[in-house]
């Protein structure tokens, strides 16, 4: 280790200015993240000209702080209002919002915060210790291997489908169709656009997530509000209690009890973060799905802190690793990493493998900021969560239309495209219908995310192997291993389903019949 460079990095980071920009970054990030439609990359793009005026550590503090804060911030509104601030937090809605409705919103937000910070910090340490090694491992994942990783993710659908596999599969089919709308990934020719030019870019994830999760819930609650049922009043009262003195917090024992789920999130998030093109949303759903599959007794997806722990540790664990390809090869693996790379370039530092030799103090400073950012995220996240969740104290008559307006703004803000608002509204009615017939949303979102990636990688693999299917599918030991794992997962899921049904039937037969 270059100790001179480390000392220089420490003296650069521990200055009033750098810490101030880091604090501003985290605060801005949590605030922006909590607003639907404004994601980490939008926030970073907006402050990029400002970062140009700062010195290198101030700039990195602002951008990395904003990134970390925004990934956590999305969970606050996901839990409080079922409106994920960014798609990264969509998987948190399942357990988080249910807990809010049960009056345990405070516990849910604290679990999200602690698991986010834990996942983020642990993955940062992994990055610092073994960045070049894991980057080399990631290089082994070409189109064939990524293809099987996607199949593995889809095999988890069984776990996300709830009790009715058929409804889960139908939801997945809708997601699959929606995911194919837009330009063909290989030839760029528009497909399934019904002749509508505005569909050429496909359906954007932000309006989809806001429509299916937030707006559809608000339609449902709005209708109930019109009927003035007691249920809504109770739910609103519970939202209002979010940070009241009598609400249940999170004990240290409860936090520790989620170590397995956080471990899954850290492992999945770290690896997914390193692979280019996947991102925090995929990591969150994968971690959530694996945890649900592995621990069926914890009732993940039904209002459990363990689902929140897996999803939030999963999405935040991608933050540090996203920077690995940038630091190891100079190649940004995500839009946010590209923006951080751009900020480095604006400071005259071209991200490349030579960075470690040429600017060791900048690399160390970046590592210190990555770690330090977690502490500020914890402190500011707590304050912000408290402040933001107070909005929940508004009565339902104000809350429901407010979230509806937020949803419209959020759908528009992501790309400034008015068609996204129309799409969000259409998807909201679809989500409302799905909820009415008991169809789960998760398979829709996950196939929407995964299917296009699967298709791209399959078609690339076929192009590379000149149409040889066997080589395209089983061209490496890693691919064969992943294919085996996917097959095993499917068998286990099916056996568990059959076993579960048999035991339910058995229980029904054992129960004494009345009369």
């Amino acid at each position, binding site marked *: 280790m270059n100790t001179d460079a480390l000392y220089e990095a420490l003296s650069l980071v521990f200055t009033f200015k750098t810490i101030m920009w880091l604090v501003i970054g985290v605060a801005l990030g949590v605030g922006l993240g909590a607003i639907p439609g404004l994601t980490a*990359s*939008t926030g*970073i*793009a*907006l402050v*990029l*000209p400002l970062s*140009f005026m700062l010195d290198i550590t101030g700039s990195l503090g602002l951008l990395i702080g904003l990134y970390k804060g925004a990934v956590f911030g999305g969970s606050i509104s996901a839990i409080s209002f079922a409106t994920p601030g960014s798609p990264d937090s969509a998987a948190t809605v399942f357990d988080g919002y249910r807990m809010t409705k049960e009056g345990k919103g405070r516990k849910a937000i604290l679990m999200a915060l602690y698991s986010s910070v834990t996942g983020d910090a642990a993955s940062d340490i992994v990055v610092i210790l073994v960045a070049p090694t894991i980057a080399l491992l*990631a*290089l*082994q*994942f*070409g*189109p*064939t291997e990524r293809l099987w990783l996607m199949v593995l993710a889809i095999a988890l659908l069984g776990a996300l489908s709830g009790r009715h596999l058929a409804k889960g599969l139908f939801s997945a089919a809708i997601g699959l169709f929606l995911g194919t709308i837009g*330009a063909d*990934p*290989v*030839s*760029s*020719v*528009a497909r399934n656009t019904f002749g509508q*030019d*505005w569909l*050429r*870019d496909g359906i954007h994830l932000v309006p989809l997530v806001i429509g299916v999760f937030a707006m559809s819930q608000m339609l449902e609650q709005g209708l109930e509000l019109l009927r003035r049922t007691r249920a809504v009043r109770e739910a609103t009262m519970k939202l209002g209690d979010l940070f009241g003195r009598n609400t249940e917090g999170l004990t240290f024992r409860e936090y520790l009890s989620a170590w397995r789920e956080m471990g899954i999130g850290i492992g999945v998030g770290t690896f997914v973060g390193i692979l*280019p*093109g996947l991102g925090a949303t995929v990591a969150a759903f994968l971690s959530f799905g694996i945890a649900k599959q592995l621990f069926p007794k914890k009732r993940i997806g039904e209002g459990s802190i363990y689902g929140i722990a897996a999803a939030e540790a999963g999405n935040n664990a991608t933050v540090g690793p996203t920077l690995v*390809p940038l630091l190891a*090869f*100079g*190649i*940004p*693996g*995500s*839009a946010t*990493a*590209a*923006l951080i790379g*751009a900020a480095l*370039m*604006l*400071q*005259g530092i*071209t*991200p*490349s*493998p*030579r960075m470690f030799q040429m600017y060791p103090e900048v690399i160390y400073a970046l590592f210190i900021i990555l770690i330090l950012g977690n502490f500020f995220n914890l402190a500011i996240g707590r304050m912000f969560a408290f402040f933001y969740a107070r909005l929940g104290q508004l009565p339902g008559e104000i809350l429901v239309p407010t979230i509806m307006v937020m949803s419209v703004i959020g759908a528009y803000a*992501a*790309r*400034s*495209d008015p*068609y*996204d608002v129309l799409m969000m509204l259409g998807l909201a009615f679809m989500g409302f219908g799905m909820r009415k017939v008991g169809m789960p949303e998760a398979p829709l979102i996950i196939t929407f995310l995964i299917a296009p990636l699967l298709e*791209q990688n399959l078609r*690339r693999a076929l*192009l*590379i192997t*000149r149409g040889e299917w066997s080589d395209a599918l089983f061209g490496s030991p890693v691919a064969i291993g992943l294919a085996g794992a996917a097959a095993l997962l499917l068998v286990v899921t099916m056996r568990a389903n059959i076993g579960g049904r048999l035991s339910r039937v058995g229980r029904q037969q054992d129960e004494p019949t009345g009369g």
Partner: protein
Amino acid sequence: MKTMTIKAVTAATALFGAVAGAQAQDTNYPQQPVTWVIPFGAGGGTDQLARLLAAEADRIFGERVTVENHAGAGGVAGWEYVLDQPADGYTIFNASPTPIITLVSEENPPIEPTDISIVGYLSSYSALLIGGEEAFPDWESFKQAAEDRAITVGGTNSTLLGIANLMDQAGVEVVFVPYTSTGEAVTDYLGGHIDTVATTESTAVTIVPENGRVIVNSSSRPLLPEIEEQLGGDVVDAKDLGFDGISFPRWVGVHPDTPEEVKARVAELVGEVAQDPAVKEAFATAGSPIDYVGREEAAQDYEGLVERMRSAVGLLQ
């Protein structure tokens, strides 16, 4: 007859007055805030550069210049938005080749790529073909290898278009593997999953020399000296090989019906912004040095560019 003459003179005077008035108004351009439209979401390459540019443009325009993102439809939504605005020069369109690629890929495009008046190019990038030093020490060895086996070339749509245009003229057959992001393509190249990768200059300097060399620059435009030096010098380009290459401009245009005087004034101001030392420095440090091309030259190049892209798209599909 006399009455007619008087009427004609009156009409002519009125018309002259109107034109003169319009000219006086036009030369006063701009008199209100200017909107700088980007057809992509916040955070992309064009958006980053536009924000750096807008930070200095207020001073030069003497009016506020605001960046607006109008994303969607492969960059065409922003273009259509510009065409829906008044043709008064207060809505300026700044794009990369992406919307042109979208339009030339469509059978029935909603607008034509020529539905714009080009006022200048801010910078241009080239598609460079990068491969292993040992496998492809030069262009000739690459051509030979492509005759012996199918060589894979990964890249995004625009960089692959540049390479496809060159390969077509050189009569070399390769397998194009399209990627949605440069990051994915380069990772697959570094992992050995594809033989070569097509990238822009700014990405190439992060790969060369540790992980490969530039086999060919598919554009006819020589690289900027400092970039060529970083890439090991003596980079062969399409012109050296006797071909007509494509380089991809970050172009600026206005509504085609904008009055000539306003177009000229917009071009003049955009040129001033592009030549401004602060903007030049910001673009250079962002990895996309200003390589300004004035209105006439840019407009002439643009016509040829659209045609070359149209035929290259056919090669990729």
